[in-house]
């Protein structure tokens, strides 16, 4: 070992960085080299001298002050959004991946994003009206938006706090619900009435109008709950003939007692596009065929309607009228 290497090892030895073998070699060299022994004394002297500038433990006040300042700064850091966390997790895994899988993942993410956005647009268009009638699930103010965009019905407000990066977005979500109960359950009855107007499927409207019509014929709920109004609306405006036919059946018991029902049925006689419904409406009018308004309508139809079956049906009813009277 030469003195140059020994000088280096003296420093390392003073700080416990030598292996046992290196330390042994150094000791042997030092035993025979007074210059290097002197060097070691100098290094040891430096070590003891450096101790005059000791490491002080930070005092409690400094720690508390620093901690408080840090907490304030951390509070001001806006929480990471879901896509930032997603980006981080992708970045974490990206190092171990080759280019092709990365591209595939990116395409997948873009596809999923486009799909959910499309779903959101579709849901917003079709269900905005329904949401207006249902209590929306309002999330807490500070809850991050971590659900799929397709579940969001609409954005009600966006406010940016002055001089800050914080943005408050208020939005409504559609939460699918399911309810079970008998026909006497007020909630079920309410939903059935809603379904007659709002359901996009003719099958759902047909089911709801059919159930309400049955209730009306059975004499339940057609007095004050609005079933009758719902059925009259369906008879007048529903696009589906089957639904209108069921509404007409439900209204039958009330033709004689309710002028509004009578008018709705007369309108059906005059204007309904389906001849079967018009025929059915004429037959329903039998209890009130002597009324002036009914007779006028029946006469008009009997004389001028282009459909011979309708004309015949009207004439038959008009012909029976004096007998009934």
């Amino acid at each position, binding site marked *: 070992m030469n003195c140059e290497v020994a000088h*280096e090892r003296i420093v390392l030895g003073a700080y416990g960085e030598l292996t046992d073998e290196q330390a042994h070699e150094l000791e042997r060299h030092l035993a025979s080299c007074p210059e290097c022994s002197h060097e070691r004394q100098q290094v040891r002297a430096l070590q003891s001298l450096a101790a005059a500038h000791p*490491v*002080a433990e930070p005092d409690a006040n400094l720690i508390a002050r620093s901690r408080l300042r840090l907490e304030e700064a951390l509070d001001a850091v806006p929480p990471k959004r879901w896509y930032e966390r997603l980006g*981080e997790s992708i*970045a974490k895994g990206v190092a171990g991946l080759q280019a092709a899988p990365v591209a595939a993942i990116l395409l997948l993410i873009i596809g999923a994003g486009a799909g959910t956005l499309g779903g959101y647009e579709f849901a917003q268009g079709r269900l905005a009206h329904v949401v207006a009638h249902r209590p929306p699930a309002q999330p807490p103010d500070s809850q991050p938006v971590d659900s799929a965009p397709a579940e969001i019905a609409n954005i009600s407000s966006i406010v940016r706090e002055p001089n800050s990066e914080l943005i408050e977005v208020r939005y409504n979500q559609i939460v699918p619900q399911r309810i079970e109960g008998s026909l006497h359950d007020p909630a079920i009855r309410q939903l059935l009435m809603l379904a007659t107007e709002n359901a996009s499927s003719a099958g759902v409207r047909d089911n709801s109008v059919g159930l309400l019509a049955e209730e009306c014929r059975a004499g339940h709920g057609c007095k004050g709950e609005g079933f009758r109004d719902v059925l009259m609306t369906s008879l007048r405006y529903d696009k589906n003939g089957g639904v209108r036919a069921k509404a007409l059946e439900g209204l039958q018991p009330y033709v004689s007692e309710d002028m509004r029902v009578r008018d709705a049925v007369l309108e059906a006689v005059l204007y309904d596009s389906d001849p079967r419904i018009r025929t059915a409406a004429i037959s329903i009018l039998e209890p009130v065929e002597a009324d002036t308004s009914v007779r006028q309508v029946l006469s008009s139809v009997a004389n001028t309607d282009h459909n011979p079956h309708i004309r015949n049906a009207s004439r038959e009813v008009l012909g029976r009228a004096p007998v009934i009277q």
Partner: protein
Amino acid sequence: MDGPERVQERQQTRAPEAELIREAQAGSRAAFDALVRQYEQQVLRLALHLTGSEHDAEDIYQEAFLKAFRYIGNFRFECSFYTWIYRIVTNLCLDQLRRKKTRREDQSVVVDHSGDEIDVLASVSDNRSFSNPGKELDRKMLGERIQAALNKLTPRERMVFELKHYQGLRLRTIGEMLNTTEETAKNTLFRATKKLRSQLAGLR
């Protein structure tokens, strides 16, 4: 010093620490606060000794943990969290030392904590024999001269000497923290001790 007790303590806390790190990566502020509690004392001790200023130490603490909070998602368990957080702190300290060094250029007069001026070069080049430093200078004065000599080192030499002599870290760990090899850290330590000896020659 990085004694066996501290190493053992670190090993014992490693498992829950990994959990804390994962929770902090998932966005848990409480987990991050717990990590801060584990390292804040060491961070402040290092920054305080290196900069000699409570104000600077506080700034380094603040910046280091804010950085850690921002980038904890990038921590991949490839090194220990202890090394990772120290890497952030040492980088900030090096920046601070560089800034201070620029300000100190052509300035041999250093102001001590109480505002008194110490002419470092004059005191170090003084040929009086300090056979008994305790007798000739009070300990405070000696400490200040040591600090002045340390300030003469390059920021990197200062950092390696600090981490080895005062913080008691292994040279391998120091190399990891400073993004260099153990061999380079060894050479830097050797250079630092040589410079210090020449700076403090008159005080022995």
